[in-house]
């Protein structure tokens, strides 16, 4: 390709301060259903995905030292937007100080929305060599307290500045996969809570099929092999499923280490791969490659490859966000989630 290199110029990450431990679930329900999740992050009463998207947008811009006024594109992603109809990006544009003329888009219908928004940003900077795209992904999925899928649901956010300038990670390529699938993690119109029919093997086959196909075609397209990667970021509905996928693709647990966040934060939905990517960037060294694989039920997967070309890190990094925490009990959790009517 003869185009100018594009990629990540800066990034930021944010995690709510509140946490709940799996023991609280065990006490309340007798068991905990999210494999490998020891505790997870919970948004406070006055937080939602828009407050978090604003926060990570500011942090991502600050990490580059880029004025918000330079942003020409904003792509926002979440599966738990506070409004089903309304331009969500309007809050971010005003909260961050992004020019009103910037092109905005909201990506909201699956846990793959984060990479969908990311690719919208990449396409923008490829098409506009002087453009700056801000990608803000925040999520805090909700399900019925009676549903096993609820146990793992956490909260977190990551933001990225994409451009041609000051790159810290060069974008090397993208491959996608989409097909018809259903019954796994869906929300009919007018329903606030995620449903999952819990047809376990059927759902897993979709997850594995899509992610492995997207990742394999990416490696094939750009001519890389598993041994070329130091970090692999895979959608983390829990802490176990990514390991199965990694193994299928020829990666080891060591590849997953830097981006394994589900154990401490839970399932971050659309923000899972983006927060994982931010964690990998935190740990990455110059010259290392990162592979990112997202998944959204329904179903689709994005695979993206990056090469680290700069050593500027986000402040605060994922570690200090993980360490800033305040534990709540299950009753407080129910109140905050609006589960007590």
């Amino acid at each position, binding site marked *: 390709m003869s185009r100018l290199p594009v990629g990540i110029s800066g990034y930021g990450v944010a995690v709510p301060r509140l946490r709940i431990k799996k023991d609280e679930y065990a006490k309340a329900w007798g068991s905990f259903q999210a494999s490998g999740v020891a505790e997870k992050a919970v948004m*406070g*009463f006055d*937080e939602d995905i828009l*407050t978090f998207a604003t926060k990570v947008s500011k942090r991502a811009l*600050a990490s580059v030292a880029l004025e918000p006024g330079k942003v020409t594109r904003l792509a926002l992603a979440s599966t738990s937007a506070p409004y089903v109809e309304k331009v969500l990006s309007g809050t971010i544009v005003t*909260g961050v100080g992004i020019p009103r003329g910037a092109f905005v888009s909201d990506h909201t219908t699956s846990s793959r929305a984060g990479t969908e928004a990311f690719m919208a940003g990449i396409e923008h900077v490829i098409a506009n060599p002087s453009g700056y795209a801000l990608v803000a992904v925040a999520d805090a999925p909700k399900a019925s307290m009676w549903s096993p899928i609820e146990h793992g649901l956490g909260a977190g956010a990551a933001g990225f500045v994409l451009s041609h300038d000051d790159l810290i990670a060069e974008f090397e390529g993208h491959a996608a996969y989409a097909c018809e699938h259903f019954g796994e993690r869906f929300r009919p119109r007018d329903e606030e809570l995620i449903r999952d029919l819990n047809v376990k093997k059927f759902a897993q086959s979709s997850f594995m099929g899509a992610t492995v196909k997207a990742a394999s075609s990416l490696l094939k397209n750009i001519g890389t092999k598993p041994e070329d990667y130091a970090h692999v970021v895979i959608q983390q509905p829990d802490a176990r499923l990514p390991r199965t996928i990694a193994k299928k693709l020829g990666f080891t647990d060591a590849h997953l280490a830097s981006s394994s966040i589900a154990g401490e934060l839970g399932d971050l939905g659309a923000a899972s791969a983006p927060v994982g990517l931010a964690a990998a960037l935190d740990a990455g060294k110059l010259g290392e490659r990162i592979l990112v694989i997202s998944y959204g039920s329904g179903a689709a997967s994005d695979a993206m490859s990056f090469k680290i070309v700069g050593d500027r890190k986000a402040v605060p990094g994922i570690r200090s966000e993980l360490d800033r925490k305040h534990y709540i009990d299950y009753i407080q959790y129910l109140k905050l989630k609006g589960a007590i009517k």
Partner: protein
Amino acid sequence: MAHVSVPMYWRTVPQRYGMVGQRCRKCDAVNFPPKGVCKYCNASSEFDEVKLSGKGKVHTFVLIGAGGAPPEFAEQEKAGGMYPVAIVELDEGPKVIGQIADVNPKDVKMGMPVSTELRKIYSEEGVIRYGFKFIPEELSR
């Protein structure tokens, strides 16, 4: 519910989302929230827009407990427990009232450095009202 109409709230969005204040052209003091006539010199209504840092120090505070919250904040108090409200002296000079989030109420101190962050303030008529709250400065960066 305190009734603050949607247009009334919208008119304060520059302050609530962006900490936009006014610098008086006559006495140079910063007014925040905005005034018709400068509250410092009381002699000029000509201002330049100025974006404040959002940083400041706690001048005084209260911990709102059970029964102390207005109805539109009662649910917050019930769900999240007692919450701190402070008058903060901003670095640029003016004082402004706001809640302090992300803090154990017992840890709030006079003079504590804080900075602003966008939060949900409350909801009315199905519309979420966002605006600044303060958080302890060491958490911002």
